[in-house]
């Protein structure tokens, strides 16, 4: 025993305190095993719970339970929605899970119409899957649970509304299970991403795989800013538009933003992709700045945008995302020797 301790001590001494060298292959493996698989699994669990909670609501009228389950499932999605590769991008799943932004309110109109007509084909999963992507996911379910007329859910008048909501939840459960299964598959995208090979269509080299991971984080931060914050905060003309915020009805706007940034931060940390201590400190500080800004927004968005202190916090959140995008898209890419291709990934 004493010998073992001595050997261990010698080994520890042999490792310089500053050495934190993680091979690119290890970063890729960590991305999948430490972040992607656990998070997709958690999302599958939360949506299964949501589906059960909707069933209980329709049977026993537990509205609060269903609303809470909605928030838990939505934020579980918020932590991984930037993983726009693999199973999330198959079968239009990203749009079917959450059709947003929906600038013209197409989803709202379609959901209202479907409720008004009590369209029974929308109350089964196969029927629902034939319909517009905008009536299949979280946006639709939020209106069912929190939008005009939600009180009827606990009465016989709301029977169709509840059945439709239960079908949406079941649809989400199915998609989440498919995403988790896709990432869990040892022969699937996880293998191609972590053990790239020139014969694969998607990931041929370790560098390409790493570029994909860093690109996801960089684009994820950009998407949070461009589609989740900027659309509702005050513009140059001073006018805010809180109804353009995601999930304003359920007051989940800020929890969703927190989940988005939390997911992005966790991937960066858990994958060990930032070896440089200075850069690591800057990235940690920028995520902390974003978290502080989110924590300062305590009112529902409609009030927050008119309150000077909270509006300033939202503006600071935008700044934090700009800093993060530079640190990750440019500085981190450079230290990893990646070219987050100047000529690619921009739809030009």
């Amino acid at each position, binding site marked *: 025993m004493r010998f073992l301790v001595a050997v261990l001590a010698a080994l520890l001494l042999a490792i310089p305190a500053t050495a934190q060298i993680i091979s690119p292959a290890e970063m890729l493996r960590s991305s999948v095993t430490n972040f992607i698989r656990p998070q997709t699994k958690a999302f599958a669990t939360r949506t299964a719970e949501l589906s059960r909670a909707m069933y209980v609501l329709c049977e026993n009228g537990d509205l609060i339970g269903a609303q809470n389950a909605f928030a838990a499932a939505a934020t579980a999605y918020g932590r991984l929605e930037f993983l726009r590769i693999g199973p999330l991008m198959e079968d239009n799943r990203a*749009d079917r899970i959450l059709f947003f*932004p929906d600038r013209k309110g197409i989803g709202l109109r379609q959901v209202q119409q479907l409720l008004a007509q009590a369209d029974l084909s929308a109350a089964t999963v196969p029927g629902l899957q034939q319909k517009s992507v905008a009536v299949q996911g979280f946006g639709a379910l939020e209106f069912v649970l929190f939008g005009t007329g939600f009180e009827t859910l606990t009465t016989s008048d709301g029977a169709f509304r509840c059945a439709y909501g239960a079908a949406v939840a079941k649809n989400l459960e199915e998609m989440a299970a498919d995403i988790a299964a896709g990432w869990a598959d040892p022969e699937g995208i996880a293998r191609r991403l972590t053990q790239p090979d020139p014969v694969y269509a*998607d990931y041929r080299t370790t560098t390409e795989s790493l570029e994909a991971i860093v690109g996801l984080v960089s684009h994820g931060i950009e998407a949070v800013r461009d589609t989740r914050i900027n659309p509702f905060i005050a513009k140059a003309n001073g006018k805010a538009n809180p109804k353009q915020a995601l999930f304003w009805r359920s007051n989940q706007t800020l929890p969703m933003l927190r989940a988005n940034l939390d997911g992005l931060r966790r991937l960066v940390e858990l994958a060990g992709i930032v070896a440089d201590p200075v850069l690591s400190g800057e990235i940690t500080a920028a995520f902390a700045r974003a978290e502080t800004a989110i924590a300062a927004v305590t009112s529902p968005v409609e009030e927050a945008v008119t309150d000077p202190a909270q509006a300033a916090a939202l503006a600071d959140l935008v700044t934090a995302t700009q800093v993060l995008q530079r640190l990750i898209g440019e500085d981190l890419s450079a230290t990893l020797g990646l*070219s987050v*291709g100047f*000529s*690619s990934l921009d739809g*030009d």
Partner: protein
Amino acid sequence: MWQRRAFLKSAGAGFLASLAPRQLLALEANDLVFASSIQTSAGKYGAVLMGERGDVIATIDLPDRGHDITISREAGRGVVFARQPGTFALVFDPFGNHAPQTLTSVEGRHFFGHGVFSPDGRLLYATESDFEAAQGVIGIYDATDNYRRIGEFPTYGTGPHEMLLMPDGSTFVVANGGIETHPDYGRAELNLDTMDPSVVFIDRRDGKLIGQLRLESGLHQLSIRHMAVDAQNRVWFGCQYKGAPSDTPQLIGYATMSGEIRLIELPPDTLRDLRNYVGSVAASSDGTTIAVSSPEGDLLVAIDAEQKRPVLVETLRNGCGLAADQTGFVATSGRGEMIGIAGAERPQQQFDFVFDNHMLRLG
């Protein structure tokens, strides 16, 4: 081809005096001139004019990232269009006699990266987006009146990208990529489930729709974005696929003014390495070869336009820009490299700036 003599002649005597001796030498030495948007090593955006041998003749500063460039000998001007969705286009004098002029997109419209001059150089046309209506338009600018915007034509679709003037000089061909974006949401793509891309032929004189061609409906997520015209007036196009990444649709095709549109068959290996993303398309000087590039897959492919099959495959890391030279094609990359392919005889060159997606050959 813009030969040196024509180049000098069209510029008139005035510009010669204003060019620095080094630039003059560069012009003297070059029969061909290339132009591209760039990003410098310091992160600044600009455009560059280069001689046939890759020697830098002039650089132009840009307020933000540029995309394609068009140049008119008749107008004596070039225009760099902002990368989509952009709010500026910069008109410059290739010879440096006149200060650049910045055009700002009008209210409710954004530039979409590409444009052309009329054959006489009097009008400039730009692909733009009417983002509230999610409809494409061609903005029309009067080059003889300070580039005043004098009107617009519809593109009969959403998300127009590249536009070309057909060799008849009176017909535009526009690639409606089909993707809706809105400035409230940055570059987010808002309608991937309901995309409706098309190739349209439009009468340059009155904006009337001459023809609109769509791929079969199962391919509605295949965004048609870049084009080049071959010797038989076929419009070759390259696509970017927005559907499931595991799908492998064909990405290269051609359309004709007689109403034909089809995708050609690339072998599975070549298709795989295009990564569902074609970044640019160019025709050779004689119009018998088409080159396409994928910066995503680091691949360049030359296609025999008659046989409609690939004749050469080359790799170039993040390679995208393509332009014909006398004998083949010049290709540039987002890593600052320039090479020759498909018969072009030139050494590989490395620059201290990186190239944007498109390379223009003047002439």
